[in-house]
């Protein structure tokens, strides 16, 4: 009987040790951090070619350091923010994260992020505010405090296939578009239809997710920071959406939806402009790399390379574009509760170029095909040389320095993003005739209600003294 009890005790101890072992190995992954240096755990979303670039940057940083050691963890996919959020709530966040979703305000509002003024000195913050391009500063700021440091901007413009436009329209493609009406005329001239009248190639097709860009170019705004009101139904936004919907009237909602879906069937998600499905496509600077590769391939095959160009988004005739477009970007964020905020700050500066690292940032931007966040990096001879070799990319860099408007940095920005895209999609693809104004007013109401709920919660929390 006594032997039996001892066996039970051994069994229980063994089980306990096993559970402990599992818990310990699961929560504290081992890394080979050089002696005397502190680890910086860095989560990012880059994969493929970009991941290799990131690893090179990390290696260069680690070689330059004797205090910190960055361990990069790649998490390609679109759930990095959720993983980060769960890590913060679980009390074991990484030291640094880089992501591109509009979540700064949501997380900052809830105290999940360390404001940069808690990591850097007041003098550095003051200098940083002047050093950053306005777009980069806006992307990382919430309630006049910097919570994120951008390390790259995503700028959008109209790519066009010069060769195709000249073939189909019979006239030279303009160097810049004078107006929306000119864009429409060129788009119409490039439509190819089969004998049944079904389009097989289009000149241009507005993407419902890009009302953010067209709205601000038309002179609209999506949020009024002074009155704290959502302004999705701003008359200029309504006008922009109505213009987008004019393509629905021209081709019919079903054709539009089918044609858009057809883009997904291109092998390896090829840039649709390269497949000749469109003559003009609104997209970001990362497509320059695809165009360069396609032209190189044509040259290797002994074919004359297709000519491409980039246009700034035009405003309606007789009006100056109120903004160059809509911007988002990659942001470094430091979660509250991280172990090595100082190391994160050093790595952020190294990558973005702040604090005398302009040469390194220029090299990184050239390597990755990324748009720097400061004019000082843009003006660095290394980057200037890169721009001379890549004139298409240079156009995006020029636009980045202009008035670029991000998705409003407010709590609920992701909800706003989804709701607005859905409203625009509903107008473009629905068989029913809907009102652009009503749809945008619905969006306004939904997001405003979300903000009001949050305000009530904040007021309640403050009242409750918690």
């Amino acid at each position, binding site marked *: 009987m006594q032997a039996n009890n001892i066996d039970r*005790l051994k*069994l229980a101890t063994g089980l306990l040790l096993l559970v402990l072992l599992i818990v310990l190995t699961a929560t504290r992954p081992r890394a080979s951090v050089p002696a005397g240096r502190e680890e910086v755990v860095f989560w990012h979303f880059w994969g493929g070619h970009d991941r290799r670039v990131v690893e090179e940057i990390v290696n260069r940083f680690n070689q330059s350091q004797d205090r910190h050691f960055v361990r990069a963890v790649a998490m390609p996919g679109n759930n990095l923010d959720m993983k980060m959020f769960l890590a913060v709530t679980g009390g074991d966040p990484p030291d640094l994260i880089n992501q591109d979703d509009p979540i700064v305000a949501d997380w900052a509002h*809830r*105290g999940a992020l360390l404001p940069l003024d808690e990591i850097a000195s007041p003098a550095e913050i003051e200098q940083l505010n002047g050093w950053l391009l306005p777009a980069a500063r806006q992307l990382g700021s919430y309630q006049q405090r910097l919570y994120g440091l951008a390390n790259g901007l995503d700028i959008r413009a109209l790519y066009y296939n010069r060769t195709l436009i000249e073939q189909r329209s019979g006239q030279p493609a303009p160097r810049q578009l004078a107006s929306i009406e000119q864009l429409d005329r060129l788009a119409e001239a490039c439509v190819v239809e089969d004998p049944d009248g079904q389009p097989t190639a289009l000149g241009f097709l507005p993407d419902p997710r890009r009302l953010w860009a067209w709205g601000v170019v038309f002179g609209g705004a999506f949020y009024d920071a002074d009155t704290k009101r959502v302004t999705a139904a701003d008359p200029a936004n309504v006008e922009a959406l109505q213009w987008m919907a004019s393509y629905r009237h021209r081709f019919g909602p079903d054709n539009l*939806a089918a044609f858009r879906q057809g883009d997904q069937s291109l092998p390896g998600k090829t840039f649709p402009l390269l497949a000749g499905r469109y003559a003009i496509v609104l997209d970001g600077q990362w497509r320059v790399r695809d165009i360069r590769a396609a032209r190189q391939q044509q040259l290797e095959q002994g074919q004359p390379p297709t000519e491409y160009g980039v246009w700034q988004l035009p405003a309606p005739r007789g009006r100056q574009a109120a903004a160059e477009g809509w911007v988002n970007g990659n942001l470094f964020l430091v979660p509250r509760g991280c172990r090595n905020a100082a190391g994160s700050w050093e790595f952020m500066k190294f990558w973005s170029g702040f604090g005398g690292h302009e040469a390194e940032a220029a090299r990184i931007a050239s390597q990755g095909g990324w748009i720097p966040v400061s004019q000082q990096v843009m003006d660095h001879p290394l980057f200037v040389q890169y721009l001379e070799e890549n004139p298409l990319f240079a156009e995006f860099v020029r636009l980045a320095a202009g008035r670029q408007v991000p998705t409003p940095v407010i709590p609920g920005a992701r*909800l706003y993003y989804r709701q607005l895209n859905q409203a625009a999609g509903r107008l473009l693809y629905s068989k029913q005739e809907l009102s652009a104004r009503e749809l945008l007013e619905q969006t306004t109401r*939904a997001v405003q209600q979300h903000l009001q709920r949050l305000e009530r919660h904040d007021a309640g929390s403050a009242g409750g003294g*918690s």
Partner: protein
Amino acid sequence: MMRALKRIPAGWWFISPWLLGLALLFIYPFVASLYWSFCRYDMLSAPRWIGTEHYQRIAAELWRGDGFGQALWNTAYFAALSVPLSIVLAVLLAVMLSWRVRGQVIFRTLFYLPAIIPLVASSILWMWLLNPTAGIVNHLLGWLGLAPQLWFNGIEEAASPSTLLSFGSKDALVLMSTWGVGNFMLIYLAALGDIPHQLYDAAELDGAGRFRRFRHLTLPMLSPLIFFNLVLGLIQSVQAFTQVYLVSEGTGEPIGSTLVLSLHLFLAAFQDLEMGYASAMAWLLFVILLIATALLFRWSRGWVHYRASLGG
């Protein structure tokens, strides 16, 4: 202390990891989510009691037909079509695969194979098949002289009077769900082999043809399993997430037509940080499923025949 520990039977120690997991990962979140459904809670700050505000919001959304209302409709549409279709298809396949024909084993393997393909792979495959411009399904429809469909890019509902037989994203999801009927089919196939052959012989002697034997013998004998699959299918279809997340890239697009309850709940909890609202939806979903299952049990009394009652 040690004496008390020694008195615990060894079986409890063996089962303790599972019990610990059950308590921490199931019972605690289950009970906590009920409390959170009455709170404003974002997981970063402490939950704050707000009474029935979330439930009132859900009621308003149901009334307006957006948010929860839209997600409930999408889920109901998907469940109402996918569950019966899967059952009918699985029964028919099982009956055909029970016929003694050359290559029976190969056919059985082929029809079961899709059920073991990972959901992610099969979802991507279906996105290709149902592509409106390049997909093989629309090409086949074209050869048959039928109009091409928008499938995952359409908001139409083939079973709704206003867009009758125009197939949109939810119909494409229904079609996709039939891909995995292999599991149901296997259960029916096993049950078919269990039906006493003398019953068929007796029915044949009484002059019953193939259809009557199927209608009055096979179906009643399979009815407990049909009922089991009906309940299971309903629960699975209401919880459908992976395939919807993949085909809509986590957005519920186009225009919210694939925003099913599980996806709406996920977006509310992890994107909009409204864990309280998401918990309220989860509890309503639970209650809806509970009521639906109870109703199915009540309804089953009229048509499910258990072997014991047949024997009695």
